[in-house]
């Protein structure tokens, strides 16, 4: 339980997360701004003029039944999918629709996938090293050397995600939960301005969930965090503001209590619950 202790002594633990000066311009308004975004596959609209804004340092939870377009939304933000129409801005300077994944990533948007994807052939240590914010062009990468401060940073993160013992094991042998943590660790190494976290606690134990909650809330404020989650308990435990997606557009927005009392939301969820049980 080294982590819980470390979490108590914030000033020491989380200093490595201090965000570096980033080009993102948030002086006026939100850090992420999506307007009238629509995506359609063969006519089917996965996203239907969606409007969403995330403020700098905000922790936002996004919920919604299957097929509501949560993952697609993340794909759009990270540049994997191009919307049919609409605009997506990162801060007030960067139009994300004109960038590809690596550019967006190096701009400071980190993403954790629904299904944890780590580099299984590489050791936990290597996974973190690759993720680390650094000069990621070819020759710097080729000639990169291991310095003490880099390994210190990696060690710190290893400790935070509790994988120190497994540092030299290939990520392939990790348990599902451990992979989730490793991926979070990689996010931390990236030092993003905006974290997109897709179902972080799937397959986690109660304790692990607790730690994740701590971590995410701890991140908020310095970095903006968007969490997509099914687990209502977890959402409730961290949520300040919740957005409900349905059929590709925002159904409701507000505090957890507001939305959970919203009749539309209830209706949708009852319906979707049956689907899920089916």
């Amino acid at each position, binding site marked *: 339980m080294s982590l819980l202790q470390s979490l108590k002594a914030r000033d020491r633990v989380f200093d490595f997360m201090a965000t570096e000066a980033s080009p993102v311009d948030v002086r006026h308004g939100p850090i992420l701004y999506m307007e009238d975004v629509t995506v359609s596959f063969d006519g089917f609209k996965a996203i239907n003029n969606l409007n969403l804004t995330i403020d700098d340092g905000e922790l936002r939870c996004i919920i919604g039944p299957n097929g509501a377009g949560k993952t697609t939304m993340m794909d759009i933000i990270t540049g994997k999918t191009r919307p049919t129409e609409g605009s997506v801005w990162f801060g007030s300077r960067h139009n994300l629709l004109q960038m590809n994944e*690596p550019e967006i990533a190096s701009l400071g948007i980190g993403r954790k996938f629904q299904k944890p*994807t780590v580099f299984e*052939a590489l050791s936990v240590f290597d996974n973190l090293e690759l993720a680390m*914010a650094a000069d*990621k*062009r070819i020759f710097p*990468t*080729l000639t990169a050397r291991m310095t003490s401060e880099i390994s210190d940073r990696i060690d710190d993160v290893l400790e935070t995600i509790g994988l120190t013992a497994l540092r030299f094991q290939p990520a392939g042998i990790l348990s599902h939960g451990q992979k989730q943590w490793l991926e979070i660790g990689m996010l931390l190494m990236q030092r993003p301005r905006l974290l997109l976290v897709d179902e972080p606690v799937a397959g986690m134990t109660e304790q692990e969930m607790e730690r994740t909650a701590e971590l995410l809330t701890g991140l908020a404020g310095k970095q903006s965090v968007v969490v997509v989650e099914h687990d209502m308990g977890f959402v409730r435990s961290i949520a300040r503001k919740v957005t409900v997606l349905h059929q590709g557009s925002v159904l409701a927005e507000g505090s957890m209590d507001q939305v959970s009392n919203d009749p539309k939301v209830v209706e949708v969820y009852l319906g979707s619950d049956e689907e899920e049980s089916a």
Partner: protein
Amino acid sequence: MMTQATSSQFWLTRPFGERATQTFLGVLFAALLLVTVLHLAVPQGHPLHVNAYTVNLFGKYLSYALLAVAVDLVWGYLGILSLGHGAFFAIGGYAMGMYLMRQIGDRGTYGHPVLPDFMVFLNWDSLPWYWHGFDMAWFAFAMVLLAPGLLALVFGFLAFRSRVTGVYLSIITQALTFALMLAFFRNEMGFGGNNGLTDFRELLGFNLRSDATRLGLFIATGVALALGYILCRAIVTSKLGRVCVATRDAEARTRFIGYRVERFQLFVFVVSAMLAGLAGALYVPQVGIINPSEFSPLFSIEIVLWVALGGRATLYGAVIGAILVNYAKTIFTGIMPDAWLFALGALFVLVTVLLPKGVAGLLGHLKRRKEDDHPPKEAAA
């Protein structure tokens, strides 16, 4: 293979620190030395004497081994199954061949000071522009690396930019080498058509028809193999190498943590193509002919088999595989010609189904050495 943490050494000298590389270089140079001694010191007629024919044979194997290493670099570490590496090999070979043709000078059958024989009897009155400069060794040798590199650069740029990967890439690489084969068969191309380039005399002033030169080429090939091996090791043990592995296993993820995947792919692809070209250049003077059949898809896919048999993503495995298969080929086609294609075909099936990690994988098991790297459980790129 992956080192535990990137050591703080200079990236190129890093491989010398590894046991695997040390053993490999040890064995290689021991072999070179052994053959040289047995060839020179042991008198003709003594049962242990290695004659020029055998030296030449081994020289050929070594150039194949270098080619295999090049293929392993892209397939093993980048997950790109290139069925067109024979093309780069052949182009390197042609570059060398053109140099050797120019070295013939006026000793050709027609005694023409400039034009190679085939141009004379097809009635060409002057040298095609792309043949100029190949009379200069430095230029020709530069082309040995640059020509395949350039082709790889253009092809790779288009392919990787539009994210053509996996099977699609394999198929179009195959189409590439097939198209080149057809092209080089055309006599209008000015590369001697089906006959290709032959009748070489001298390389840098050394008579290609003397045993001494053959020994020299054999050793040179060995050294080239060593250097190529070290370069590849240096790449795969660097952080860049790990980015490659990352790309191989989860391309999208690698993009999301900020790497320009296509550029890394392109870089490694080009390096590999250049190595293949070098292998071709060393191959040609030893076998004395280069012609379009080196472009044949069959050859390219055979190279992949060498790598698969030796063990993917372990460079030394590629070397073992190349030597094993070609050695078997020499024996079989000598003793029971009909059996050869059966054997080759069976190898393809057995290796992929029963021996996905190849000979190297077996050795690893036997030694029970727990290594830090695990070759991809799903080799699919």
